[in-house]
């Protein structure tokens, strides 16, 4: 019974992901893209949740691990015959090697995790505003280096010619993997210890929890998940440095806070709710009919409406749509 109660916390988010994927199979191919994109965003937001939600420390730096994952998977999957045309200055080691879809995703997760670990070793000594600004610095540095280092990627150009393997199925499986890992971590001893440091740092330290080590582990793990999400992203659309920078940082953070930052359920609900609204308005902007409603919005109103609604939710319900609680049908 007890285990069942715990499992419903996984069932809620997982079911939402599956339902979204199934809904995506019902619509036209052009609309399906929005569903795929939404599922990749779910993976990113859950990766962010793994650290931010459990530790209570704000990170602006996670999109840099998404970017690193996207670069890893992208560079390794561009077919070797077109590599010199797209990335003329690529290092020799990378130029001759091309991997398949799955291994590129695994490597994206690995490299994302390693980068996160390296960054976390010094940074997790900080907390509060200093931590926020330092992670912002990480984002700036990553963006700057990826933009101008042409030995490791396309620099200012977009990743064209990456095989577009992230369809609805791959996105759904990826999002599910991330959700399950985040759930397992949250239930584990380490997840509980980290949440204890979030609720009361002094008490946690008094019973012998090392805040530094718990945050370090969570940061590295969420780097792995963010790297995987980045890999999925580059297989979905031609990513460039601007698409994995401030806008994405903002939208994923807002999704997490809108849903409710302290629960996995909140992360998934927030990602889906904001994406659903955003995609619906994007379709409406194009003037086509969607689920029977014919709307015609002038271009650009979408971001204004989404921004307004997010600001309103944050101001009126700062604990998020779910109130930061996990999914429960029944309570113990």
């Amino acid at each position, binding site marked *: 019974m007890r285990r069942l109660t715990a499992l419903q916390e996984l069932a809620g988010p997982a079911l939402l992901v599956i339902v979204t994927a199934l809904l995506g199979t019902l619509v036209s191919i052009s609309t399906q893209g929005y569903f795929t994109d939404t599922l990749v965003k779910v993976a990113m937001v859950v990766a962010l949740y793994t650290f931010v939600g459990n530790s209570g420390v704000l990170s602006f730096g996670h999109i840099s691990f998404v970017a690193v994952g996207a670069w890893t998977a992208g560079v390794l999957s561009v077919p070797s015959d077109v590599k010199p045309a797209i990335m003329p200055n690529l290092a020799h080691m990378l130029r001759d090697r091309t991997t398949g879809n799955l291994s590129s995703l695994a490597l994206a997760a690995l490299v994302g995790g390693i980068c996160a670990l390296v960054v976390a070793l010094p940074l997790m000594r900080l907390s509060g505003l200093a931590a926020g600004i330092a992670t*912002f610095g990480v984002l700036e540095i990553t963006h*700057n280096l990826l933009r101008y280092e042409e030995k490791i990627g396309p620099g200012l150009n977009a990743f064209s010619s990456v095989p577009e393997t992230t369809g609805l199925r791959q996105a759904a499986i990826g999002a599910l993997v991330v959700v399950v890992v985040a759930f397992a971590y949250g239930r584990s001893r380490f997840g509980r210890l980290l949440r204890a440091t979030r609720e009361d740092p002094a008490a946690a330290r008094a019973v012998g929890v090392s805040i530094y080590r718990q945050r370090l582990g969570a940061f590295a793990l969420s780097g792995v998940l963010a790297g995987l999400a980045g890999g999925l992203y580059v297989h979905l659309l031609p990513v460039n440095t601007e698409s994995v920078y401030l806008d994405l940082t903002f939208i994923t953070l807002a999704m997490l806070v809108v849903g409710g930052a302290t629960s996995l359920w909140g992360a998934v609900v927030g990602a889906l709710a904001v994406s659903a609204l955003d995609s619906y308005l994007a379709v409406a902007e194009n003037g086509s009919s969607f689920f029977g409603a014919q709307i015609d919005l002038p271009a650009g109103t979408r971001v204004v409406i989404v921004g307004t609604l997010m600001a309103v939710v*944050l101001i009126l319900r700062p604990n998020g749509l779910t109130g930061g609680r996990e999914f429960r049908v029944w309570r113990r």
Partner: protein
Amino acid sequence: MTMLAIWNIDWQTIADATALGGVYALMAVGIGLVFGVLRLVNFAYGQLVMAGAFSLALASQWGWPQWAGIGLCFAVVLALSMLMDRLVFRPLRGHSPAVMLVATFAVAFLLQSIALLWFGPLGKIATSLAYLNRPITISHVDIRKITIVAVVVAALCLVALALLLERTTVGLHMRASSMDFQTARMLGVRANRVIAMAVLVSGALAAVVAVMLTVQNPLVTPDFALRDTIIVLAGVVLGGMNRPIPATLGGFAIGFASGLLGGALPTNQSQYLPTFLFAAVILVLLVRPGGIFTRARLVERV
């Protein structure tokens, strides 16, 4: 002087770096004042500057005289600040810093997308004050007039602010509130009034910054001052967020450093300026998490 020559720095670079430092110091005070009374990091501060810059651009497009353009800039920025305080800051009072920061993030995003919708991604050009951009020569060194104006105006604003904080009742209330808001209220400080005052002063500084930045960079786009805000925020945290003087010094230091680095780095490395700058910020934060210009360790270290 030989040291300077090795680092490829001339007096012109130093003058420009000082001016940038002055402008950033004003932004730092603007952010720091609101943080002092509300414990809220206003990420949307750059968008206030952006709104002011667009008012200047519109005024110059309509052929308004300069004083009217600057007047419009102040009116728009002050009105927007008051609106922000009423609609965003007040409902958020007392919430966790993370929620407040993300909420102002949302406001920044919203204002930027409104500007994008209204003016388009290419932006507008503000020409009316362009004559300030011309150089004058002081003992063989070309210095743009705006550099001198920016240094003087920043110094005047900071002196005025210091007088306001030290010599007036409302300044005393502001200082008391930023030390301990609850106690200050119990002793009869009116919360709404002191917050409104802080927001207004911070808005006025944003308008001044808008004028300075528009002269230096007449092309006003929706992401105007966004980068500057990020750098200033880093500077404020670096200096020490909790008190106005360290925050100001932090803002000046980071503006001066980025101006100097921009001039000193060889051209093939200057594209990596953000990397050098933020690596330095992270290093300093690791050594002094509470800020370099503070005495006590204010930020808890894990």
